[in-house]
């Protein structure tokens, strides 16, 4: 069955077809979620939520734009995660689970082995969303400008501008991070 048929069948309620779609796309969702800042131990939950939401809204999809929807839903789910996350880790909150933090750090170093990678990853996460997302979608998801424009609901020209500015800001963020390393401690 080709992808179009899979989507059509899934839209009719064929869970087997939907299972095949999940198999095809779940790695994309996992990686994209991580790139958007979802922590490693939360990726399975976020991925699960994405595919449940996707199924709920499946009937609305235009088959040609399935991946666009997939990215949008992942993005929204990751945003919701951010919101929860920001509450949990609010800068004012004192309580902090050190053990989790150590585990998280250790898990991250297994994915991003080199310090440069970790630094760049963190720098990207520090960018404003309007810059962060185009750069992730362009460089790490290999999407075209048009696809990015569709996902983010912005004009094509804005995609190009934002990617250009994102690179510039990324450089500044990395510089600031170098400064942070020398926090007055």
């Amino acid at each position: 069955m080709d992808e179009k048929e899979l989507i059509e069948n899934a839209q009719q309620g064929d869970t087997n077809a939907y299972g095949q779609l999940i198999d095809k796309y779940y790695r994309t969702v996992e990686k994209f979620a991580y790139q958007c800042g979802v922590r490693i131990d939360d990726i399975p939950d976020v991925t699960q939520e994405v595919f449940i939401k996707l199924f709920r809204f499946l009937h609305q999809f235009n088959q040609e734009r399935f991946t666009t929807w997939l990215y949008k839903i992942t993005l929204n789910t990751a945003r919701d995660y951010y919101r929860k996350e920001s509450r949990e880790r609010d800068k004012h909150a004192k309580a902090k689970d050190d053990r989790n933090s150590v585990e998280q750090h250790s898990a991250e170093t297994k994915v991003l082995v080199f310090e440069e990678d970790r630094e760049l990853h963190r720098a990207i996460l520090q960018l404003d969303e309007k810059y962060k997302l185009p750069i992730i979608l362009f460089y790490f998801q290999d999407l075209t400008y048009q696809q990015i424009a569709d996902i983010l609901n912005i004009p094509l020209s804005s995609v190009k501008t934002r990617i250009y500015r994102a690179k510039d800001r990324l450089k500044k963020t990395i510089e600031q991070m170098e400064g942070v390393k020398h926090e007055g401690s």
Partner: protein
Amino acid sequence: MEFLKKSYERVPSTFDPEDVLRKIDKECQKNHTKKESNTMMYFSKKVTVWFVSIASIFIFGFFTASFLLLEKQEQADENKEKITQAFLKDLEEKYQKERTKRQALLKMETERFDELMFVKRQDERMNYLLTYDFAKRDATQADLEMELSKVIEGLKLPSEMIEELAKKSLEQEEEESILFLTVYREKVNELIQAYNDILIKHEEEIQRFIVEAPANKAEVMMLSRKQFSSELQNMIDTMKNQSIRLFDSGVIQAQYYESGLHRKLEEKLHHNSTGYVNMIAREPFLKGGVPIYPVEEALQYVLEMQKILLTNKPGTELYRIMESEFVSLLFDIVKGSEYTKIVDEKGFVKDEYKETWKALSNDGYVTPTAFLLKPIVKEMEKTNWQKSASWDAFSYESIKKALTMAREDELERIMYGERPDVRDHTINLPNPEFEQQVIQLYEEFNNTHDMSLFKGVSPIYVVGVFNYANEMEDPETMLQFYSENSAIYNDESGLEFDVNRYLERWKKGFSLFKDIEEITFSASTLERYNNRLYTYVQMLKNDDVLRVLNLELDENEIWHIQQAFFDPLPSSEEQAETPIDENFMIVIRHTYQTLSELESEWDTNGYPAATVAGVFLYAGEIGDYEMQYNLQFHDKVHSTNEKERLIQEARLREKVLFEEAYKSISFQAKAQGSDEQWRGVTTLTRDSEKGLSGSKKQFISMIWTEKGWKVDKTSE
């Protein structure tokens, strides 16, 4: 980027697709059960509600107001064409043409189309226009043409409204955005009502249409429209264009959904209307008293709506609708209903509601939900989640009252008492008097480390003394200022804070006031989180904020530092001997590429000195002498000719294969020189195994500038 992209391949995968499918199956079964209980309720509650909203009053008011204006302008436009019967007839024909066009777009029967409220309103306006005694008012044809265009605007379908919005964005217009949405929502609701009337009319036909589970009847109906009578077919054909679709909630109903067209709303309207855009896509939250969303999702919507209700201007139609939705949904979540059972058979609050209430009570901010739920959770916990007097007293009225108090800034006082008297404060630099006061405070404080000295003292002085302690290389005094919540005690390493480690690792940084002309604090930036108030002090130069310091006010009215970043002194930089291998060269090539893409100023700020030296040598290896020139320190600005000459000289030098010639690199900065320059030395060790000639070590003298490290000169 390419390396990082490859690294992302290592993101671990523990996701179980089977688990998702199981949950979907479970959800389908649950919905199926719910459908049966809802069927009767829908038909018993089906009531046609026509209402004249604020939006319609506004539109009509605007219309009549423009006529009043016409009266005031009597005789002002004598030369313009007068109204004739022929002109009025032509006007009416134009209107009818536009009206017919909309009816055709909806493929709706005349009787039903005539009853659409937004169509009726335009009919009334048109009638008023055609029967008005213009002869007495001296109105012109142009005036009436203008009025007609407004009437036609009112006829436009929701889809047309969005198409026009796409051409003329209202991103900068808050009031117009909200008015637009009000009218849009009203038209959508009128269409939904009309569609539901059609569905009721054809109820028997729909009931005869049997769909086997687990297929969704609404979905199948939309895919099989040709099997229905023409009115249903036409409705199914056109409703999606208005972001309305069939929905199976036990009975088939029309419902708005988040279509591609709908998403354009958020993009083209003012950001303060985003919450309303979302509300339109999600409402109703309760249908006939039955919650539409699971409680976990409803919690998010309550919090989102609350945020909007506390930040947006009240008084609009949409605000009132949202307030009503918020009150109903919050009440349902907390108090439950016939359809929302919050306690189990034994009379204990169910786990999902315990969690939801806790989340509502613990958001940390001054909100109606925190105010109302804190006592409920506290009392419930004392009785093992069975009883609470506050829960008994919880009502629609108490929610509304809490919202009012929050809007009037009364809630914070009730929850936390009066705020301390904190005033705006600005200091311009240089300022000898301020500097002297800071020194005095520091000297008094560093003997005792008694923070009560700073009770009621402006946060700017706290920052001043903290910064001065850095100048005096006194990390122990600096430590006293950090709040217990600060990043210093809760850093990302996961290691427990240790004073000795802190003192060992501490290094003096540049003054926070370096290059600063103004230090400012505004009391309006105060934000409460639980028992404490938070703010920030800004440091500016030419009105640009160069640095920001976060502070926290404790219960004793003493400001503490939350986070402080000092730019490192160049003298603190060192790099241990590092092998020049492929990993190192990846960094060098990447840095070279980044620097090559810089279009203007050569800024190596943030790059380690050894990396700058490495890029300098790599640039020589690949013949990029202009890059080499730019990475060199020049004590004066060269003319184009001089620059060309220096680049030409470099071109004539022997090429060194950097990676081949050297096996390691290190860097050590020096203390600031008597000439106030910051210098350091990069040391390269030759690869003796490759039998290369020359000294064993090569030294590159580096000099630090405001734009980062630069190469001064090389020597052996």
